[in-house]
């Protein structure tokens, strides 16, 4: 197996893990919060909210800007 495939498999594994956690979070009585609840908790603090907004802004700049 090439390193390209291994790297892609790693990304895919994390994506599947995220989807799995979200599915588990929606089961009745689950102790795992949904991703929206985690985002709400992070963005409830001033530092967290500004940090998330700054990461979002950086992503756009990273993909398109000089």
């Amino acid at each position: 197996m090439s390193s390209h495939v291994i790297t892609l498999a790693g990304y895919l594994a994390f994506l599947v893990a995220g989807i799995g956690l979200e599915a588990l979070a929606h089961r009745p009585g689950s102790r795992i919060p949904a991703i929206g609840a985690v985002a709400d908790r992070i963005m409830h603090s001033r530092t967290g909210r500004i940090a998330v907004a700054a990461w979002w802004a950086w992503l756009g700049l990273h993909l398109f800007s000089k």
Partner: protein
Amino acid sequence: MPVPAPHARRTAFAAGLRRCPWAVVHPVILTFAIAAYFSYVSGETTGAAYLLAAGLALAWDHAHRRAARSSGAATSGRPGRPGRVPVFSRESAERRRAAMGRLLIPAVLAGAGYSAVVGWFPRYSWPATIAVAIPAAAGVLVAWRVSAGSASKPGRLNRAGVAPWALVGAGASAWELAALYLQPDPGTDSYAHPTLTYLANPILASAPGRSAVLFGWLAAGWYLARR
């Protein structure tokens, strides 16, 4: 939230300045510093400068607010809560969501028009840089403004429940960084060790692809602003 008297604000400013170096020792701010370093070694000077500036601004804000809280606690005679970060109220969040709900259709139309036009600009060109920097800066300024003057406590999440999310987030970040470091050099893409940006390149090579990604980026910003 009452506006502090001018001398109290000056005291808080001076105290914030003194505490600023210590405020850098904060997980979020350290993350920005590390990300700035990786951006710099990847040859992305603008991104590195932006991340560093964002981290320093957060450090300053964190120090300033802690100093203001401490001086407020000292004058009121009540003990301060230096570890507690103020948050905005549930009512203000609901008002913001209602306002954004009313603006949804115009915002979708504006976002679609923006994405369609800016998608035609070549990547890494000045028109693309300026066109993306404007909403990016606006998003950060809105976040800064919206979270000012808050009062309620955040709801608590189960730590054991949050841990798997933290593990997935940290693991994915480490995987991406490993791919970046296994490239011939951080500024040169590698087929053998692709980063997420490298994997996005085929989509971002065409104008419709760039438009779709820009629209998704704006939609993500809208989603975050509603939280």
